[in-house]
């Protein structure tokens, strides 16, 4: 029986909107503990050097300084995915981010002053800043902790294939080979990094007030780094001012802060200023993609062969595993009979890359979608037709063995084509306004996991529920709120199921000592996984309530409905207030609390060693059509309209969804047109918002969003993951639109006015 939904699908402001807007939210920077010290970190002056000596005596003498630590003073294990990153560097530095020493002092200013007084003698060395150089046979080893039988500078290789690529090449009427260069982009979280560590010498426990998006993995990793028991570490997440993947890894400043607290026996806080945030937080992988794509004479795609070199930087974060996601796009976005994928994360002396919303997919999709336009052009086929012809479909089993249990790809493509007013004759000449301004339309699609991603022994999430004697519900969820609106979505689901008002629901989700386990915020998984976990718990809670209510109302459980704070019998029309039912359970035999717990594990599979398997319960699809206007005098691109159709399964909170879509699209626009962290010989040239440009509010085009509801059989209410998707097709759609307008060749990002003008000039 399908009942009408009362809360799900209704625009609902975020639960934390008021405290955020009124300035009452406690971000990492706002934490104040009694007796707290402030920490500051000395980073290297040169990207590559041997450290000859470190003299901290002057810093120690500065009044107000309580402790100074260097790599020689600490007992800590390396951090990061390959455990190749010492918390404080000894003997040598490998990139401009490297931490050499840290100070704890009574004020932030004194700590910063003290850092300047630390004298380091360096023996400056030549570095390697180009991954292709690093791959040469005689290249020196960049990271001393690397082991294995690969080339010494390969941090992580990936290889995948399916289908008979040679046969497909023979079947191809056209083959396009392109080399793409994708830039380093950084997250630009509004709140820079912040942590407060509080170690107690008495009970030997450590509390970290921090901004991680994976609290339980962070807890375990921190324990390993500090040689502690995980359960002695308590992670409390402060309000997080932007994650976007940046908080998936641990960074040295976090254990450094813990070490300073352990050293001093006092709480210590470390916060970054904006420049440090630019230099010391991660980036999207800079990479070179050689993509060869084929299609037969009817426009059916035949194969893709992708060979990728990623600039890993000096250390290996989770970011090195982005090929895991990229290969899904190369292998399975649009129907594809054969694929070869070969990617290597290669060490250099650049700042290291990390994980970033989309996780490699923006790069992969850029390459795939640019090549599709080139294939269509060579075939003389319409660029919308060719996409529609190859679109993914429901119940498709892809070469990589992903199962598309629900799929709105075709529909998404049709919607954006229709809404953008695209017609084949619109292209090029049709869109020209004048000699100076030219318009064009571009398309791109995307495929991303939409039901979690099984890469860790469990991809699950736990939920504890308790309803108090007054009918108020507390949801204790393992999942984390990092601004994406997850707690609101969870509260909406509980409100829907229990028929109680949102204001009677609290979400507790910030404390590892309290909340049940969850793998973390990544893979756009929270609504899907935490939502299903909550629904499981709600079912148990309702069983409890319904048993009692049926008894009180002298009716059957099936006869009950939950509405307006009441549990009602549909036959008699009689009802009890929900809190009354709770009290009946609590204060009369069997005298139980109205509390339950539930753990949900998605049905997805681990991939085998060939990277095959259904890694997610379901998948998200989207298409965007973007219209741009190019000023041929200046090379400036004005993005006019962005049409987004996305298979979200089911809209839970239209407001939150619009926020994700608009935010994602704007991030994609920045990637397309503006953003690049420039680096020269390992130095960052634009560590500030003046020279690192992100779109401003007046640059935002009209964003039209059309949700596609495929009602996924596994999703909560049919919903699937939405968070990363909107960013992914934006850059290629913009690039394709620019090419449509002025016919230049675009193989790299960002598409700056200067590059456009140069290309126009060269073509002329």
């Amino acid at each position, binding site marked *: 029986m399908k009942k009408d939904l009362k809360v799900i699908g209704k625009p609902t402001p975020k639960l934390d909107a008021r405290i955020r807007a009124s300035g009452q939210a406690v971000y990492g920077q706002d934490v104040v503990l009694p007796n707290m010290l402030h920490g500051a970190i000395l980073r290297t002056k040169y990207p590559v050097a041997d450290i000859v000596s470190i003299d901290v005596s002057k810093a120690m003498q500065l009044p107000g300084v309580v402790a100074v630590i260097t790599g020689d003073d600490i007992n800590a294990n390396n951090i990061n995915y390959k455990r190749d990153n010492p918390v404080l560097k000894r003997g040598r530095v490998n990139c401009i981010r490297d931490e050499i020493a840290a100070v704890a002092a009574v004020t932030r200013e004194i700590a910063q002053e003290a850092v300047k007084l630390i004298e380091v003698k360096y023996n400056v060395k030549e570095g390697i800043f180009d991954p292709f150089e690093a791959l040469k046979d005689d290249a020196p080893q960049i990271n001393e902790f690397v082991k294995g039988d690969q080339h010494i500078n390969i941090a992580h290789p990936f290889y995948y294939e399916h289908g008979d690529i040679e046969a497909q090449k023979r079947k191809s009427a056209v083959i396009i080979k392109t080399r793409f260069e994708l830039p380093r982009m950084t997250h630009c979280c509004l709140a820079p990094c912040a942590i407060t560590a509080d170690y107690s010498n008495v009970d030997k426990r450590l509390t970290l007030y921090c901004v991680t998006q994976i609290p339980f993995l962070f807890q375990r990793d921190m324990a390993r780094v500090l040689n502690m028991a995980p359960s002695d570490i308590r992670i409390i997440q402060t309000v997080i001012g932007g994650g976007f993947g940046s908080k998936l890894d641990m960074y040295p400043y976090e254990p450094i802060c813990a070490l300073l607290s352990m050293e001093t026996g006092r709480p210590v806080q470390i916060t970054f200023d904006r420049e440090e945030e630019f230099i010391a937080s991660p980036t999207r992988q800079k990479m070179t993609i050689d993509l060869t794509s084929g299609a037969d004479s009817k426009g059916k795609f035949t194969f893709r062969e992708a060979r990728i070199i990623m600039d890993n930087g000096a250390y290996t974060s989770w970011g090195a595993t982005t090929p895991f996601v990229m290969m899904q796009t190369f292998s399975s976005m649009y129907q594809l009979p054969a694929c070869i994928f070969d990617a290597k994360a290669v060490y250099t002396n650049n700042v290291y890359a990390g994980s970033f919303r989309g996780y490699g997919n923006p790069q992969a999709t850029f390459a795939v979608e640019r090549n599709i336009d080139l294939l269509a052009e060579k075939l003389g086929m319409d660029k919308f037709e060719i996409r529609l012809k190859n679109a993914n479909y429901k119940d498709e089993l892809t070469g990589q063995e992903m199962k598309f249990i629900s799929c709105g790809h075709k529909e998404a493509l049709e919607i954006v084509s229709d809404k953008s007013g695209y017609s084949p004759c619109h292209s090029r000449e049709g869109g020209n306004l004048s000699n*100076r301004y030219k318009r064009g339309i571009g398309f791109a699609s995307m495929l991303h996991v939409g039901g979690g991603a099984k890469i860790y022994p469990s991809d699950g999430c736990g939920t504890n529920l308790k309803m108090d004697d007054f009918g108020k519900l507390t949801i204790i969820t393992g999942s984390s709120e990092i601004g994406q609106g997850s707690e609101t979505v969870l509260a909406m689901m509980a409100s829907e199921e229990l028929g109680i008002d949102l204001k009677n629901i609290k979400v507790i989700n910030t404390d590892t000592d309290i909340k049940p386990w969850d793998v973390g915020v990544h893979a756009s998984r929270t609504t899907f996984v935490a939502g299903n976990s909550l629904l499981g718990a709600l079912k148990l809670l309702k069983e409890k309530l319904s048993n009692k209510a049926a008894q009180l109302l002298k009716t059957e459980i099936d006869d009950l409905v939950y509405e307006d704070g009441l549990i009602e019998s549909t036959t008699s029309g009689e009802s009890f207030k929900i809190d009354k039912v709770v009290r009946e359970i609590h204060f009369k035999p069997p005298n139980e609390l109205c509390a339950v717990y539930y753990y949900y594990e998605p049905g997805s599979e681990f991939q085998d060693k060939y990277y095959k398997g259904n890694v997610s319960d379901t998948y998200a699809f989207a298409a965007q059509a973007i219209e741009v206007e190019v000023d041929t*005098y*200046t*090379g*400036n691109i004005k993005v006019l309209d962005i049409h987004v159709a996305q298979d979200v399964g089911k809209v839970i909170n239209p407001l939150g969804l619009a926020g994700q879509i608009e935010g994602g699209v704007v991030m994609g626009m920045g990637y397309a*047109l*503006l953003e690049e962290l*420039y680096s020269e010989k390992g130095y960052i*040239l*634009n560590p500030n*918002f*003046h*020279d690192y*440009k992100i*779109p*401003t*509010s*007046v*640059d935002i085009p009209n964003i039209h969003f059309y949700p596609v509801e495929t009602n996924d059989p596994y999703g909560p209410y049919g919903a699937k993951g939405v968070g990363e998707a909107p960013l992914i097709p934006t850059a290629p759609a913009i690039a394709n639109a620019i090419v449509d307008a002025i016919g230049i060749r675009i193989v790299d990002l960002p598409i*700056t*006015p*200067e590059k456009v*003008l*140069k290309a126009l*000039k060269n073509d002329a």
Partner: protein
Amino acid sequence: MKFNVVSPENTKELLELISVNQDRYFRFGAGYTDLLIELKKQPDEDLTVINLAQLTDDIFTAISKIADGFRIGSLVTAKRISLSKDLQSNYSVLTEAAKKLASGQVRQVATIGGNICTASPAGDMACALVALQANCEILNSNGTLRIIPITDFFTGVRTTVLQKDEVLRSIVIPSNNRKNKIYSNFIKIGTRRAMECSIVSLAYHILTDEKSIITHAGIALGSVAPTIMLAKSACDYLLGKSFSSLNPSEIKEFSQKILEYASPISDIRASAWYRTEVLGNVAKSIFEN
């Protein structure tokens, strides 16, 4: 970043404070949108900031019509300039420059005096004022006024003719005299539409008579040389020509003359090549519609 702040409330107090501080390191502060950024990069010194923001004298704070044009106090903000109907109808090059400066928040506090005195080649309002061939009214600590054309005000990147005991009091924009039609606008080239430092800017203020003949032309260029440039020979070239019927070769020659004033550098925002190319293109665009 540490400094003392003193806040005079009238001209007399201001002049006294300037005198008193002659032997010390002091700076003027108006909207602080340039000053604070500059001070952040400097080592702490014993610095006094003479805060102009509390001055109440009209001569510093008002936009007023005078016999031979308009006077704008140095403390008038970009926001107020952008809203002035008088300035809009007579000198839209200036109001457009003010509207394109930074963002709503910055415009609220950024002053025209600060924009001039900071002497950046990318100063937007300053560039418009060069096109308007405005005069700077400068007061020294004795209360003596000297007036110099803005075209002589800048001596290099971030340097001006101001002496240590001088403050910029106001700016006078000459009247348009017998105007018929005014072609006055500010073209700002950057990669985004707000919070953008000009990669190239071109300010023009062109007056024509009834027959569309150009009787006056002021064209200034920003971000293509160490200081904002008045493109004098390009201005002169236009005099006597008909605005609406310049032929392509005349337009080309005009744009060539503009480019003679450009000696751009390459930096992280744009290459010299791009700056030159764009300047040539947008120079031509003045005569297109």
